[in-house]
C-alpha cells in the first residue's frame, strides 16, 4: 500500500492511497494519518481511486480519524470510491456517518 499526502489549500490535505487496506496495512495508514489528525489537524480528503479492497480494520482507521477530527472541528471526506468499496460502505451504513464524494473537486465543496 502506498500513501501520498498533498496539500490542496492551507487547511486541506489530500491523502491518496494506492493498494489494499487490510489488517497488515491499516496500522501503517493510521500512523501516516496521525500527522494530519493528531499533530497538526487539517481537513482531509481521502482519495480511494486506487483502493480495491478495505476490511474492518481499514474502516476503523477512517472512523477513528473522523471521530478525532470532529472534536477539532475538522472534516474528513472520502472520494472516488470504486464500486466494491462503495458497496461495503453502504452495507455497513457508513456512508450515513462519513461524507462520501464522487471526485476530489466534489469533496472539496463539502468542506466548510
Amino acid at each position: 500500500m502506498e500513501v501520498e499526502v498533498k496539500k490542496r489549500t492551507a487547511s486541506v490535505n489530500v491523502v491518496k492511497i494506492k493498494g489494499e487496506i487490510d489488517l497488515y496495512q491499516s496500522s501503517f495508514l493510521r500512523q501516516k494519518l496521525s500527522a494530519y489528525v493528531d499533530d497538526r489537524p487539517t481537513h482531509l480528503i481521502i482519495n480511494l481511486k486506487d483502493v480495491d479492497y478495505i476490511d474492518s480494520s481499514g474502516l476503523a482507521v477512517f472512523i477513528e480519524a473522523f471521530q478525532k477530527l470532529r472534536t477539532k472541528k475538522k472534516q474528513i471526506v472520502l472520494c472516488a470510491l470504486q464500486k466494491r468499496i462503495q458497496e461495503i460502505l453502504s452495507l455497513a451504513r457508513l456512508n450515513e456517518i462519513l461524507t462520501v464524494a464522487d471526485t476530489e473537486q466534489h469533496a472539496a465543496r463539502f468542506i466548510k
Partner: protein
Amino acid sequence: MTTSLPDRQEQLSNLEAAQEASKIFNALTDRDHVASFFLDMGCRLLKARSGQLFRLEQGKLQEEASTVVAQKAAPKISDPETQFLKKIFKNARPDILALKKQWLLALPLVVRSQIWAVAAFRLTEAPEKKEAIYTGMALADPAASAIKNIEFYQEKLRAQRMATIGQTISILSHEMKNRLGVLLGHAFLMNRRLNKKEWAAAQRSWSGLHEGLHELQEYVLNLLSMTRERQTVMKKTNLNQLMQKTVKEFQVKAKKKGLRLTAQLPKHPIQVSIDVSGLTSVLQNLIGNAIEACDKKKQSIQVKLAQDKEKNLHVFVKDTGPGMPPEVQNKIFNLFFTTKGHKGTGLGLVICEKIIKEHGGHMQCHSAVGKGTQFEIFLPSHLITH
C-alpha cells in the same frame, strides 16, 4: 402484527450493518471511539435524534458520551426518564419509554453478567418495539464487549508496567545498597587509620574509596544512557582500523589469561559512517565479556568482519569458552540480567543492543554449552561511505 416487505428488508439491512459495525468496534483501539461510533451507528439504524451513554455513579446518572443528529446539544433527561434509566440499570433489560409523543429507547451494556452503562436513544418516530430493541441490542452487545476488552487490555498493560517499575526499583536499590556499603566500609577504615595516623593504610582506603566512587559513577552513567536518548554522532571512519585498534587494546588482558585473541578483517578498507565511540564500546563490551567467559588456557577469541552479497556488514565476536545453556541465552539482552554475580550489572549487552539498533542494525547470539559463544552484529549497507 405482521411486518411488511420493505420493513423486513430494512430490518435485515440494519442487522447486516450492525454486524459490520461490530467488526469495526473490535478494530478500534480507543474506548471513547467505540462509544462514540456506537452512538453514531445507533442514531442511524434506530432513526434517533440523539444518543447518550450513561453510567450510574453513587446512584446518579453520569453522561459518558453523546451524539446528536441535526441538533446542537444532547437533550436534557427529564425526571421520569431518569427514573426509567435507573430501572434499566436495575433489571438490565432493554425497554422503550413513551411520553407525550417522545420515545426513549434504553439499551443496557452488559459484559460478563455486569451492567456498566445504559445507552439512551431519542427516537424520531413511534417504533416497532421488538424490532427497535433487536436492532439496538445487535449494536449494544458487541460495543460493550469491545469497550470492556480495551479496558481489560489497558489495565493489563498498566499492571505489567507497575510490576516492571517495582522490579527495577528493587534491583536498583539492591545494587546501590551494595555499592554504598563498600564505599562506607572504605570510609570507615580510612577514618580509623587517619585517627591512628597509619598514613600508608589510609592511602589504600582512599584508593578503594576513589575506585568505588568511580565505579558508581560509571554505573549511573550507564543507567542514564539506557533511559535517555543517546546523542549519536555519526562520523566517517575506517571500520577495519577501529576493530584492529580495539582488539589490540585487549591483547595484554587476553595474554594474561593464556587466551589467543585474533582479528580476521577484509584486506580492503571498509569506510563507514558510524557513531565511533558507541561502536567501540560495543566491541569492548563483547571482547571483554568473551575474555571473562573463557575459563581455560588456550581457549581462543576471534573477532571477524565480513560482508554479504548486499554489502551489509557482519561483525562476529566468537569464543571457544564454556558457552551458555538456552535458558541463559534467552535472557542475556534483558535489563539487569547478569551471569557475573556481583561483578556484573546486567547493563552491558542491553546498551550494546541499543547502540546497534540506533545504527539500524541488530545483534544475535549463538551459543552451545562446551563449544563456545558467538555474537553477531548486523550493520546495514547504507552505513558504508565510498
